[in-house]
């Protein structure tokens, strides 16, 4: 089988092996330089594995033990053992524990306390940590995290929504903070956050849907902003938002599937940001999750709001959220 033939289909076994091999690359400097992404890497890898029907490729015991070791006394999680607590890593930790059905391994009340402490009482915005950076990404992290823990009561939800709406733009999209330009990653965060708290009526779905579906370029790939290059991770950020808004059919699915498949590394496994580039676990997850949303065969369905396998979201009893 030559390379192009191989890239006609999803290389499931290779991707599973690739994800399993990530923790063995200790003689690469890169491995050490990306230590702060270790916990995120576990979430990306584990979610991808579950979608590929191969969750057992990572040992549950090891995964849970590692996640627990990243928690701090204040309840927050760091990107790796000893790294400082941050809201983004706290969400990754909760996502992993929910996938593994192992929330009882940690002190949930402490997590809730930490997340709630990140909300600014006046604006409703969330800071990433005690140093005060504000970003709608953190609003998503907080809402997703507390929703998974069934503790949205711990924060001021109307205020949180109010802040997100201040970040809405002329094109119907959302930016990192009030005044900031729309960006597909941020749109996923804001639309996802609004979906979690049943506020999708605040989104101008036709206008935003137009902006989102125009992200598809001639080669089938999607970009994150107008006049930018295509990138596999946007097959998640853009698609999930379109899916939540009930407009997934507004792009050409076949062309996008083709684009993601060509970005696979047909020798080493994994998926890259675009064809010919180095694969990494981040793009591997978002490529696979995108394919799952597009209905690619033999993948478990993914939930567009939580970026978790659908069966996990169903197991914990969270209803599906669609645009009405």
């Amino acid at each position, binding site marked *: 089988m030559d390379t192009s033939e191989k890239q006609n289909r999803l290389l499931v076994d290779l991707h599973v092996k690739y994800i399993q091999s990530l923790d063995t690359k200790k*003689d*690469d*400097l890169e491995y*050490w*330089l990306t*230590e*702060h992404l270790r916990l995120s890497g576990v979430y990306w890898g584990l979610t991808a594995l579950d979608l590929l029907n191969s969750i057992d490729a990572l040992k549950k015991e090891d995964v849970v033990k590692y996640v627990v070791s990243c928690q701090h006394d204040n309840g927050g999680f*760091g*990107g790796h053992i*000893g*790294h*400082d607590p*941050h809201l983004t890593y706290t969400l990754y930790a909760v996502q992993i524990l929910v996938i593994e059905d192992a929330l009882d391994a940690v002190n949930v009340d402490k997590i809730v306390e930490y997340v709630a402490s990140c909300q600014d009482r006046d604006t409703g915005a969330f800071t990433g*940590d005690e*140093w005060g*950076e504000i970003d709608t990404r953190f609003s998503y992290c907080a809402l997703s995290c507390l929703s998974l823990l069934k503790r949205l009561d711990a924060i001021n939800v109307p205020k949180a929504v109010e802040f997100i*709406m201040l970040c*809405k*733009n*002329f*094109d119907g999209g959302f*930016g*990192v*903070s009030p*005044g*900031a*330009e*729309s*960006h597909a990653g941020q749109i996923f965060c804001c639309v996802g956050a609004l979906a979690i708290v049943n506020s999708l009526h605040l989104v*101008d779905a036709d206008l935003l*849907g*137009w*902006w989102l*579906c*125009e992200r*598809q370029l001639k080669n089938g790939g999607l970009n994150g*902003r*107008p*006049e*930018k290059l295509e*990138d596999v991770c946007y097959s998640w950020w853009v698609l999930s938002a379109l899916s939540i808004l009930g*407009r997934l*059919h*507004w*792009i*050409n699915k076949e*062309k996008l599937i083709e684009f993601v498949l060509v970005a696979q*590394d047909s*020798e080493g496994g994994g998926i*890259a*940001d675009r064809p*010919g*580039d*180095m*694969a*990494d676990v*981040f*793009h591997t997850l978002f490529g696979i999750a995108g394919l799952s949303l597009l209905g690619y065969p033999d993948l478990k369905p993914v939930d567009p709001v939580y970026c978790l396998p659908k069966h996990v979201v169903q197991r914990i009893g969270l209803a599906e959220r669609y645009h009405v």
Partner: protein
Amino acid sequence: MHGRKRVKPSAEVEKLRKEKEVTKIKEYRNLVESYFQKKDKKEFDNDALALTTKILSQNPDFYSIWNFRRLILLNGLLKECSEEDKQQTLSTELVFLQELFQLNPKSYWIFNHRRWCLETMQNPDWDKELQLVGKFLELDARNFHAWDYRRYVTSKLSCTTETSLTQIEFDFTTTKINQNFSNYSAWHQRSKLLPLLIKEKNLDEQEKKKLIDKEFELVKAAFYTDPDDQSAWLYHWWLVAQGSIISTSQMNEESKESSNSLNQNLSINTSERIELLQREINVVRELLELEPDSKYCLQTLANLLSELKSNVKEDSKKIDDEIVTICDRLIKIDKFRTKRYEDLRSKFISNQQG
């Protein structure tokens, strides 16, 4: 993780690289090890600061190191010293950050630390920051970190000087747009500034109208130059939606957001609204003669017609027919998004039947 070419080195080359990396890995891990030790022992001294400099120069994304660096400064160099020394220390910090920017123009952490330094200083030089960010945007006119930073700096600057920079910033977007009509970031910024400008200048009806007409001129020049770029069309669509509000009442944040309040304003000024829609329909029709396959042009015409239909009583069947024809054309031209046009068309076909 982005934009790194996949290379498949020979086993020989790979072996050599790994041998070379052994020392580098050892050095790096030693640095990280001493960081953990110093953090544990709360050693906020010059050695610790030098250590963070070394790690961050190699790895500016290691966020915990930035946090430790701030702790070192707060508990060490910045503690119990004169304002002058404080200013000096933080200025040195800014120079360090500027060096890091060269290699990492898109790092959240570097921008964050810069904000922290300036906010910790007694006399931050916001003018200098504005010049700096101007340079960033010269290098990359779409760097959204830089645009964000620019909004931050100008808000600080207008606070300290108690003068509005809205006009200056508005002119800045004009410059950027004239350099390149496809600068979406600049159009976006303009959509934020235009309502502010109208509000702050307290313009009368005549002056408002003049300003808005100038906007329509600019956006027309843009989509005539490049009809295939979505930027100007989105701005045009937004401008059309704003038109009625601007001409009837002072634009405020709320009416900018909500399409409901837009409709409320329409009844006040329907004739002006119709006039504007018809004028823009003509502009788009003229371009369509030159660019019959421009999908954004067709799309905009459909939008404008649909808007016109909700404002006039007559011709609604004729308008429906034209929109359906446009959708059919779009389905042929833009193969990737046929379902979207089918959705749009179905709204007008059912109208016809009803």
